[in-house]
């Protein structure tokens, strides 16, 4: 899109001014303050957004102040395939004209013209984005600190889009529709979507009012119930009085019947007493007669029982005597067997003592032998351990000695074969001194010496010879000496003189070890589980026992000669003893059985004697009692008295039956029950009547009191209050739901829209930014499409931490990027920059100039400035100067 020309007439302070814009690159419009530069973007907004019929504040604001003229704006624009001339006049004789020259001529006026332009823009541009861009670049837009930092912020495109799509135009207090919708929602909902406290409070007030009303209704209903109750109580009182009177009448009538019945009951009771007394007298005589009969019967029975017992005693006497004799025989036989048993036990005890004595003798001998073997073995063990303690040559030392001996032999052989040597033969006995030592040789004796280094031979008076060995010989001799020294050292450590002795020592040592082991084995075998001390004690104990037995034993019979003999005698006496013991036990049982039978017979006899005594006594007692009874009343008198008593009983019974019949007819119990019931009913009626009166009195007093409270009027007030708060509540809930729905729908669509712009905007900002900041420049857009972070030379910073100049530069780059993506088919949209970059240093200003120039290749850029030098770095810019 390109703006070719803008003409303002009667617009604020401008009477009539036309600005022509080059269609390519960057245009800088220079002018001092208040020359109307900033009217240009504002006028473009008004002509595109406001109907000519609008009388809104933004329109009224641009009307010349002191002239009776109305504002007019005319612009010539090309966008997509279209080029058109568009003019509007507001407030008086409003007018809109549209002349399209390309792609084909077309003309419209009024609302149709407005709509046509809108359609063209929507067809050729991302209209919302372009409007957002214009809003952002509008002076005073989108920034609280505008006066301090003009065009200074990093723009939030989303915020501008929110304003743009809200369809609102410039003006004081302008706000985004989205923000306003959000604020509206926040009135009723918390950030997390919960109901706000105010709504709960209002709901609570509705509930309170409802409860208040219900309470008052309840009170009124209670009063009405009480009033109804009073009416009921009054009508019920008549009934209660009638009941009470009826009860009293019944009570009197029943009381009369009760008195009559009580009299009858008295007569019956008296007759019952007389009848009872007569019956008791008769019963006493009957009892006496029965006792008399019992006495006679008892006397007969006692006599018969005594006769039976005496006969039984006579029959039992022979059996008792036989049992006594049999018991005595059994006792004698048992005592005889007991004596034989004692003899057998003594014989067996003596035989067993002999048997054990022989056993002790054998044990004593065996223990003595074991003890001797143990002593021998302990001695061998001590000897071998003493030897082993001193024998130092073991297999290891022996092998070292053998090795050292081998080295020595080899060294000697080397010396003899390769070293210096004195060989000779004494031709005559001769003495000489060899190395100072006197040596004598017999004639013919060979003289042989090895020369280690030097050897001095003094032949007294003959010659003094010095034999020197060569260097090799010296070395061999040295080795020999060393080998010898080593060999002797090892032999000395083993306490031996040579290899043979060493080998013998090892052989002796092995023998000693074997002996020691055999001694240990022998000790263990002979001691078994005993210690030497215990074994010794045991030997001594057995010895003492043997001695004691020998001393104590009688000489007759003589001690059996052998162990086996003693054992045999023991077995024999044991068998005899068992036999005697069996005989004794059999006879003992026989005696016990005979004694038991004797005891039973004796008990039976004693029992019979006691029972016979008792029987005799009982007979005498029965005779005594019978005699006493007859003395008191004879048998004939007793019969006469009984008949008389029975006649009296029969008479009283007849009277009693008659009286009882009369009482049954009078039914005093029923009469009493009826009377009690009548009295209770009477009392209840009186009580109910009292309660009735009392309740009515209380209710009337209460009603009088409550009647003064004006409850009905208060109920009316409560009803109105409920209606009022309920309506408030419903209205608030309706608004809350509407705000929530509106917010949800707008939110969803808004997010969808933001996602669409995210990638292309990032790409373009970075493209322009690389010119200013370098090749590694990157940015990050937030959810609101605002630049939130910048990355440069690998360092990422939040925009808030950037310098004022850097933030200003990012803001301008965002606008340029936005303008570049406005037109979906390329060509961009005009960007109007109003004196930006006041905070940029010269270097950045220069680079920003290059970026603006680069953006100018993609879209039309119009810079408004009152500082001519600020944009000198925009290379291809064309400058237009305006004046007041």
């Amino acid at each position, binding site marked *: 899109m390109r703006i070719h020309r803008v003409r303002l007439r009667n617009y604020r302070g401008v009477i009539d001014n036309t600005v022509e814009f080059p269609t390519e690159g960057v245009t800088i419009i220079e002018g001092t303050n208040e020359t109307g530069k900033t009217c240009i973007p504002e006028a473009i907004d008004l002509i595109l957004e406001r109907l000519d019929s609008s009388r809104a504040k933004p329109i009224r604001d641009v009307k010349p102040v002191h002239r009776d003229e109305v504002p007019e704006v005319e612009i010539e624009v090309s966008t997509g395939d279209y080029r058109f001339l568009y003019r509007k006049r507001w407030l008086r004789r409003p007018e809109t004209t549209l002349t399209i020259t390309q792609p084909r001529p077309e003309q419209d006026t009024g609302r149709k013209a407005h709509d046509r332009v809108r359609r063209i823009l929507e067809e050729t541009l991302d209209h919302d984005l372009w409007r957002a861009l214009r809003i952002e670049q509008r002076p005073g837009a989108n920034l609280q600190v505008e006066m301090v930092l003009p065009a200074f912020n990093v723009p939030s495109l989303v915020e501008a889009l929110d304003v743009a799509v809200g369809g609102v*135009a410039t003006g004081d207090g302008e706000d985004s529709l989205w923000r306003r919708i959000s604020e509206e929602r926040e009135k009723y909902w918390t950030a997390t979507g919960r109901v706000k406290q105010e709504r709960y409070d209002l709901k609570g007030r509705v509930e309170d009012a409802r409860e208040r009303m219900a309470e008052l209704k309840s009170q009124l209903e209670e009063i009405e119930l009480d009033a109804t109750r009073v009416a009921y109580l009054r009508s019920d009182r008549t009934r209660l009085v009638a009941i009470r009177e009826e009860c009293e009448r019944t009570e009197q009538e029943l009381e009369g019947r009760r008195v009559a019945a009580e009299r009858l009951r008295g007569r019956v009771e008296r007759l019952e007493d007389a009848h009872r007394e007569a019956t008791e007298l008769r019963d006493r005589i009957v009892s006496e007669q029965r006792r008399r009969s019992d006495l006679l019967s008892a006397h007969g029975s006692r006599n018969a029982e005594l006769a039976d017992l005496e006969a039984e005693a006579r029959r039992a006497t022979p059996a008792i005597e036989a049992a006594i004799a049999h018991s005595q025989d059994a006792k004698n036989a048992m005592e005889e067997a007991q004596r034989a048993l004692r003899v057998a036990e003594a014989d067996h005890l003596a035989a067993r003592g002999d048997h054990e004595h022989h056993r002790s003798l054998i044990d004593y001998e065996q223990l003595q032998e074991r003890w001797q073997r143990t002593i021998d073995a302990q001695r061998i063990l001590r000897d071998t351990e003493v030897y082993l303690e001193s024998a130092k040559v073991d297999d290891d030392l022996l092998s070292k000695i053998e090795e050292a001996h081998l080295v020595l032999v080899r060294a000697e052989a080397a010396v003899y074969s390769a070293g210096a040597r004195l060989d000779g033969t004494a031709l005559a006995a001769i003495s000489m001194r060899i190395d100072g030592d006197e040596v004598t040789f017999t004639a013919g004796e060979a003289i042989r010496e090895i020369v280690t280094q030097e050897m001095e031979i003094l032949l007294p008076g003959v010659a003094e010879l010095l034999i020197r060995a060569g260097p090799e010989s010296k070395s061999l001799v040295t080795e020999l000496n060393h080998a010898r020294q080593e060999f002797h050292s090892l032999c000395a450590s083993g306490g031996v003189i040579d290899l043979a002795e060493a080998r013998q020592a090892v052989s002796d040592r092995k023998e000693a070890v074997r002996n020691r082991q055999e001694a240990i084995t022998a000790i263990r075998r002979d001691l078994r589980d005993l210690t030497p001390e215990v074994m010794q004690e045991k030997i001594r104990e057995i010895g003492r026992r043997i001695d004691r037995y020998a001393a104590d034993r009688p000489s007759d019979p003589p001690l059996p000669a052998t162990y086996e003999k003693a054992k045999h005698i023991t077995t024999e006496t044991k068998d005899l003893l068992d036999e005697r013991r069996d005989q004794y036990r059999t006879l003992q049982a026989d005696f016990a059985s005979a004694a038991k039978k004797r005891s039973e017979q004796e008990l039976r006899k004693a029992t019979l004697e006691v029972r016979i005594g008792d029987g005799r006594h009982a007979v005498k007692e029965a005779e005594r009692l019978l005699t006493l009874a007859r003395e008191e009343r004879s048998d004939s008198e007793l019969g006469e008295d009984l008949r008389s008593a029975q006649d009296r009983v029969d008479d009283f019974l007849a009277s009693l039956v008659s009286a009882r019949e009369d009482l049954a007819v009078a039914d005093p119990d029923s009469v009493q029950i009826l009377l009690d019931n009548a009295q209770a009913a009477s009392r209840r009626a009186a009580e109910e009547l009292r309660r009735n009166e009392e309740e009515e009195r209380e209710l009337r007093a209460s009603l009088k009191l409550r009647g003064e409270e004006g409850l*009905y009027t208060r109920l009316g007030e409560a009803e109105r209050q409920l209606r009022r708060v309920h309506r408030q509540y419903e209205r608030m809930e309706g608004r809350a739901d509407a705000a929530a*729905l509106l917010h949800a729908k707008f939110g969803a669509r808004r997010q969808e829209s933001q996602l669409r712009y995210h990638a292309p905007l990032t790409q373009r900002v970075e493209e322009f930014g690389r010119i200013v900041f370098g090749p590694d420049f990157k940015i990050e857009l937030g959810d609101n499409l605002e630049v939130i972070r910048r990355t440069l030379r690998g360092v990422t910073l939040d925009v808030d931490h950037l310098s004022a100049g850097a933030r200003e530069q990012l803001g301008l780059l965002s606008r340029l990027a936005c303008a570049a993506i406005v037109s979906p088919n390329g060509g961009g949209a005009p960007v109007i920059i109003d004196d930006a970059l006041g905070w940029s240093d010269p270097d950045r200003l220069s680079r920003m100039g290059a970026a603006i120039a680069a953006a100018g290749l993609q879209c039309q850029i119009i810079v408004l400035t009152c500082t001519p030098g600020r944009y000198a770095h925009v290379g291809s810019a064309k400058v237009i100067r305006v004046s007041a």
Partner: protein
Amino acid sequence: MARFIHTADWQLGMTRYFLEGEAQARFTQARIDVIRTIGALAEEERCGFVVVCGDVFESNHVEREIVIRALEAIGETPQITFYLLPGNHDPLDASSVYRSPTFESKRPANVVVLDGSDPVEAAPGVELIPAPWRSKDPRADLVNRACDDLGPTDGIRIVVGHGQLDWFAHTHHNPARVELAGLEEKIQAGLVHYVALGDRHSKTEAGTTGRIWYSGAPEPTAFREVDPGNVLVVSLGSGWVKVDDRSVGAWRFLSNEWEITDDGDLDALDEWLSDLRPKERTIVRIKVGGYVSLKQQARLGDLLEDHDDPLAVLEIDDKDLLASPDETDVEEYGVSGFALKAVQDLTRLTEEGEENSGARDALVLLRRLIGEIQ
């Protein structure tokens, strides 16, 4: 001859839930004021007394201040005796206002409560035959029963009663309904000469004798009443009767139905509401139906809000009014981009059915928010 005022159903202390703020106080005061009007009318018409045929008070439990103010208003015309009959709203039960300490202590000399069943002489040769209600739910025809033992008379007998005549079809289940034929028989037999009735708030003549009347309420109480706001000036002579109504009520209950389909209908409604007089004593209920745009709905809301304050009550029932955004509505939002899509989403919701009134509310809210921004 007897000349008196027949009135009934003062319903003193009546509250209306829809009266908000100070309107209820005015409504209550009007019922006190009309007592003075009646007293003055009685003097003006040279009436000897006033019979008030039941429901003098809206309830036995009205604020005692109302009782006092009413008795004071009656006391302002001391030469006119007011005979007050307990009705179904203020029956002579144990909680009766007529037996309250306030009433008994403040009752002026010219107030007589018809609380017995014996005839009361209202003027020489003029007997009142009272039929007071002693409970809210009597199980008998109190009016005819009051007349049962009447014998022939040389004077004038006026029955003072309360209740629905069996003449009205809806009363056949009511055991307390008043048998019209019985009353007419007694009139024709010359036992009674006029039956002054209360309970029906619309002025009504019953039967064919010309002597049985409901005076109606002196101040209206509900929308359904046909001819309220009157009292009757009754003149009785030997063999003749003259009954004249006098309008004394200051309040009006109006209900109306409006079909709104275009701006012209809105203009007409505006005009009708503007012409209502006196606004502060007029209670209006409007049922609005039709199909309107959101813009028209908003205008209707503004219009009703404008008239709400001057009127005592303006009740709106707009359940039958269907509002839906039309093309103009959407255009007038002046939104584009995602906002336009959101508006279109909501518009679609409104077209999906009644249950989506939430979407309409959301659109109305949007209109308001845009208006606030602009």
